[in-house]
């Protein structure tokens, strides 16, 4: 459930530049550094490093969130700030930009500017054509700090430039270049379509035998860095660390590093019962590696949210692991790496969505037959065969599950993500308090032609939902083409027919208003449109 904002655009000239594919032209001098876009705008103005490229790096490194890296693997430097700035780069960038080192780590503006000044210096050293986005690829690879050529190539091609080419959301706006950008960098040997969930084997030498021990639990880690940086570090012989799996930031790819039957080295504590009066000698060698499976996840423990695609993919993987290893699927056995607090079993410092994660694992394994999903859909369409008139398009409340070139959701900050009531579609839903305001959730979808759509909606029902709430259909000119009042206290966990509405070519939308008597919670979960499936 990506939370989007509809705050007004304050840096229109920059966006215009981005949408036309230019790199440093027509920029605004009125910089709003309260806005992420404004910060990148200023960085481009001052250094010439394309704002779009900086934003794509930020997306790849931190999902554009302020992070405070903590050491996950011995010897690996950790990232800070919205850019994931790390190691010596922090001091060098801060010096170039005229900030203190601490500011470059903790202040969003200083963090972006330190990165931009550093990249600008590297661009000058390498003599690249700074007007070409593709020419910046070497600088991007250098910024990653990844030494393995294959991993660096994947970082450039499959992370930063893929994000750049596919576009991304910033403050409710979709940002992308006007044409596809090809990075001037060696192509990775593994050619992934990356359009679905993919598992890639990248064997790590950092493992040994479990010695016949049973696996008792599953440990959830965060990489404290990017996906490529993570798996490449864990496969490097000199690091002496590994994990069984690494999941990328959107859950579209899983790296398998160590066979589950072997002992990966994902927990650093080395246990020796000789240091402990001969207690628990069955744990000798390591405290927990012997009896656990570890999953690393691209990102930082300090980030405030996780991509629903990552959670969903990891949950399916966890279901498979617990099935294979006979691990109970509960919070006594699926635990966080940082969960060393002896005063409390929960992991309050982490922002990992434990409740939703465990729920998804149990649903994926069929433990919760009445669980909240429709069977683990991962794309923008239903899992079943298309209906005769046309392929139905589902617009989910989770933009990570939407093909956003065809459909997506946006909501104001009055709506929040939830998975509290089961029976929702896919990974959860947006919810908002009813009030005497429209403030709708917008389910946008693109139609090539003027045609009739059979429009349906899905929600999870509960007693505190509105008894009467309105769905509206609007064409690209904001002309109403249909409306339907529904009762969200019932009809939950199913597709409910809203109407057969005639839409026009372009971006149409189905709106769900908050306008109802105060005291209820309206749910925006999923909308399905089936072209040509209208009743005569």
């Amino acid at each position, binding site marked *: 459930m990506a939370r989007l904002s509809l705050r007004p655009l304050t840096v229109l000239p920059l966006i215009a530049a981005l949408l036309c594919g230019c790199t440093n032209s027509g920029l605004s001098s009125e910089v709003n550094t309260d806005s992420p876009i404004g910060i990148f705008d200023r960085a481009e103005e001052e250094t010439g490093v394309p704002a779009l490229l900086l934003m794509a790096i930020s997306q790849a490194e931190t999902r554009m969130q302020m992070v405070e890296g903590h050491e996950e693997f011995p010897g690996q430097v950790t990232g800070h700030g919205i850019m994931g700035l790390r190691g010596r780069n922090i001091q060098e960038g801060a010096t170039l930009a005229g900030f203190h080192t601490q500011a470059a780590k903790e202040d969003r503006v200083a963090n972006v500017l330190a990165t931009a000044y550093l990249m600008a210096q590297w661009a000058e050293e390498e003599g690249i054509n700074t007007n070409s986005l593709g020419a910046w690829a070497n600088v991007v690879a250098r910024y990653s700090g990844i030494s393995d050529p294959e991993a660096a190539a994947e970082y450039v091609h499959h992370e930063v430039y893929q994000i750049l080419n596919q576009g991304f959301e910033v403050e409710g706006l979709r940002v992308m270049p006007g044409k596809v950008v090809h990075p001037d960098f060696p192509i990775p040997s593994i050619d992934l379509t990356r359009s679905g969930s993919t598992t890639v084997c990248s064997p790590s030498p950092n493992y040994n035998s479990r010695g016949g021990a*049973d696996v*008792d*639990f599953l440990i959830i880690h965060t990489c404290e860095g990017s996906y490529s940086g993570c798996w490449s570090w864990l496969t490097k012989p000199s690091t002496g660390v590994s994990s069984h799996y690494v999941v990328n930031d959107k859950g579209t790819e899983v790296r398998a590093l160590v066979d589950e039957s072997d002992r990966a080295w994902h927990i650093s*504590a*080395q*246990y*020796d019962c000789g*240091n*402990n*009066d001969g*207690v*628990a000698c069955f*744990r000798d060698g390591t*405290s*927990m590696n012997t*009896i656990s499976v570890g999953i690393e996840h691209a990102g930082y423990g300090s980030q*405030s*949210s996780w991509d629903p695609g990552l959670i969903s993919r990891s949950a399916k993987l966890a279901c498979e692991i617990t099935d294979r290893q006979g691990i*109970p*699927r*509960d*919070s*006594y*056995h699926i635990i966080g790496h940082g969960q*060393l607090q*002896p*005063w*409390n*079993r*929960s992991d*309050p410092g982490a*922002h990992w969505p434990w*409740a*939703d994660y*465990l*729920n998804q694992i*149990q649903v994926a394994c069929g*433990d*919760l037959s009445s669980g909240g999903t429709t069977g683990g859909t991962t794309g923008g369409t239903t899992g079943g065969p298309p209906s005769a008139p046309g392929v139905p398009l589902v617009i989910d409340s989770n933009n990570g599950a939407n093909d956003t070139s065809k459909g997506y959701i946006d909501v104001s900050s009055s709506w*929040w*993500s*939830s*998975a*509290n*009531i*089961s029976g929702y579609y896919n990974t959860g839903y947006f*919810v908002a308090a009813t009030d005497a305001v429209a403030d709708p959730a917008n389910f946008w979808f693109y139609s090539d032609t003027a045609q009739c759509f059979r429009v349906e909606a899905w929600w999870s029902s*509960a007693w*505190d939902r509105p008894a009467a709430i309105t769905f509206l259909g609007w064409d690209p000119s904001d002309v109403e083409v249909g409306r339907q009042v529904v009762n969200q206290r019932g009809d939950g966990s199913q597709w409910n027919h809203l109407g057969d509405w005639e839409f026009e070519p372009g971006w149409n939308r189905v709106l769900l208003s908050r306008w109802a008597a105060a005291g209820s*919670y309206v749910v925006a979960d999923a909308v399905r449109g089936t072209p040509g499936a209208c009743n005569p």
Partner: protein
Amino acid sequence: MQPVSLLLSLWACGSPAGPSVVQPTGTILVVQGQGDDLQTVVYTAPGFAIGSRTLEKQSYPSAPDPRGTHSAQIRITEVPEHIESLWLTSLADTSAVQLTQAATKVRNPSWSQDGSWLAFESDAESYRDLYRINRDGTGIKRLTDQKHGSFEPHITPAGLIVFGTSRNGNAEVYTMEADGTNPRRLTNHPADDVHPRWSPDGTQIAWISSRQGGPAVWRMTSDGSGAKRIKPLSPGSTDVDFAWSPDSSRVAVVTRRSANDLDIQLVHIDTGELFIVGDPGVSEHPAWSPDSKWIAYTSHADHGGNARVMLTAIDGTHITTICQNNCWLPRWLP
């Protein structure tokens, strides 16, 4: 502290009954510091802030001694590896007796009502099992032996132990006798059923279950019947911790509305009356006073990341800071 007349005038309409005496009594233990630089600090009534002293370094107060003279402390060492052990430390002179062997995890001790013995969980011999031990460190006995573990023991006044276990494939709530015999299953659901706690009068069990939406506090009778939520569903929120009031009338529930948004909600167990205490959105670790009229809690209201331990009457009045620099996890002894 306010005089009684002023206190009465501050009671909010509809809020729980306030303290019958202005001065709370007892002793509050607080953790101060983080990581490898923390200590347990003692604050004693009246006034609490006066005469505070360090009880132990590198240990956590885990279970308040019902006799009020000692604290069951979990000591941590990180070098050469992470090791935990359970100690009984005197509040009078800080002398300490080691109760258990060290293991990588020794957690969740619970006292018998008379303070003569404790139950706890340990991974010394298995993934996690339950043990009991006498107050003087004698009579250790393993109570469970289950491949997938037993967790979080809690002892009723009659000596019955409620605990969580995954012996049937996922987390469920069980009870057993004080000697580990007669295990009895009370819950049966594929979602999590964890963190069971007896009401102090021994008539009910509250626990956290994910059987209906996200994790929420439920209650049931001692035989497992009559299970129901203690408060209505609230969209987008989950219950992460709770504490029974000593008079068994209320449960203080820590509810998380988002990653850093924690409320302490007092729920009357019979009427369902709900009242938020502490600093809304930034409070956790509720610890009840022995007379059920006050709550100590951790507040994260400082934007600089500093945590404080605060005190409030249960009607939301008389908010006082007990420990203001990097302090958290209060425990209240009689």
